[in-house]
């Protein structure tokens, strides 16, 4: 069992999950409420990582991070080193790659909130932000939790993009999925099996808990109405 790879994956997934909560909620709220006629284009862009193979994303990210691209040059100019093969690079790649997994459940939940409640809130003089905070968010907890958990779990299991931009540096970019792949390549099936089983069990438990909580199997937080 390679604990450094496991810890690295968990650290990456947690960080990506927090960033996606911060970035995803506004995007989801905009997608759920905006009446802009070209909104479908934004929806398509957000959903792209679901259908694109990680190789496409990984390839473009590698090129974008490299010195041949303006972004890569700008970053290297500021920080003195490139983005590829760094933990920061992995975080950026994972945020892009897991974006739809956070945004889509959240947007769906926001859209389901009863319009009349929003209108009532506005009639009573609450600002849009306050309505969002006190009405929409509490009523959309299920969707937000699902989005957060999916982005966490998806990042934890991410392989292709990390393989393409990571460079397999222990403690920096060698995530658990890469470690598993290496073990398989080196024909060390026992090592691969131990970590693969752990990941499988963890993913199953996480997803089960999320669905159970969404079905109100247990009350993990007091229902405030």
């Amino acid at each position, binding site marked *: 069992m390679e604990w450094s790879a496991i810890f690295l994956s968990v650290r990456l997934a947690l960080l990506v999950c927090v960033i996606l909560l911060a970035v995803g909620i506004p995007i989801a709220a905009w997608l759920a409420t905006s009446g802009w006629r070209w909104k479908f284009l934004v929806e398509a862009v957000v959903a792209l990582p679901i259908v694109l193979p990680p190789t496409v994303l990984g390839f473009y990210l*590698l090129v974008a991070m490299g010195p041949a691209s303006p972004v890569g040059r700008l970053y290297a100019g500021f920080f003195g080193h490139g983005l*590829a093969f760094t933990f920061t690079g992995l975080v950026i790649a994972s945020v892009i790659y897991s974006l739809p997994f956070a945004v889509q459940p959240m947007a769906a939940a926001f859209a389901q909130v009863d319009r009349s409640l929003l209108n009532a809130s506005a009639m009573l003089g609450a600002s849009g932000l306050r309505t969002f905070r006190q009405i929409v968010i509490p009523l959309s907890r299920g969707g937000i939790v699902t989005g957060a958990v999916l982005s966490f779990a998806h990042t934890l299991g991410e392989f292709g993009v990390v393989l393409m931009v990571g*460079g*397999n*540096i222990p403690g920096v970019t060698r995530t658990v999925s890469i470690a598993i792949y290496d073990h*398989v390549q080196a*024909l060390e099936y026992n090592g691969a099996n131990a970590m693969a089983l752990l990941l499988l069990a963890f993913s199953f438990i996480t997803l089960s808990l999320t669905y159970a909580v969404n079905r109100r199997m247990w009350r993990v937080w007091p229902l405030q109405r």
Partner: protein
Amino acid sequence: MKNQSALVAMLLACLCFCPPAVVWAGEIAVAAASDLTYAFEQAARRFRQQTGSSMRPIYGSSGNFFSQIKNGAPYDLFFSADVEYPKRLEMAGLAEPGSLYEYAAGRIVLWVPANSRLDAGRGLALLLDPAVRKIAIANPEHAPYGRAALAALRHEGIYDRVKDKLVLGESISQAAQFVASGNADAGLIALSLALAPAMKARGRYFEINSTNYPPIIQAAVILKAARDKQTARQFVDFLKQPEGLALMRRYGFAPPQAGSGGGGN
């Protein structure tokens, strides 16, 4: 209208159930290590011209092919980047007895992009230069070129000073891609890749003395499950002829016994 949709459904069904591309008699499927890509494109063309039979190469990582073959993949020939895999297949009874043949000894080179200010001619000492921040090599855990790169660095006595600069490609091709895209400043890659058309114009290389690392013996076997062993043998014979040897040499695959090489471009 109804007829039309029935027709479409039938066509779709045909598409779904028609057999996948089959290998015809006189055509062999060759699982080949990805560094053979350019050499084998040429070899396939010449082989067809000479014999009328065709060989269809499938490129990938030798480790993956090994697992696939163990699980019944329908290849006729397996050209591995590492002699270890064909040996294991032979031991497992999955290869034709006596068909194992060492087709080349891999060479490693120090490679820098063409637009880099670094001078590859300085050899491995160049890697100590502070301008070299990342060095791409293949993963030594499972790629023989990666193990050779580590051995060369240790032989030069600089491994401890450069080990934090190393980034590992999943295969030697990925290591090459890391440095060709400019994300790594230098790389230790296969000579065959440095000579590949896609890489040749994009960088400069310096050949590492082949006595400074253990030989990277590359070997092939005819598989027991091969459907056309005769054509498979024909292809192996083709590569052993002077023309085949010259072709392979042009792409950086010298036969093992031709041994030691020097530096220089």
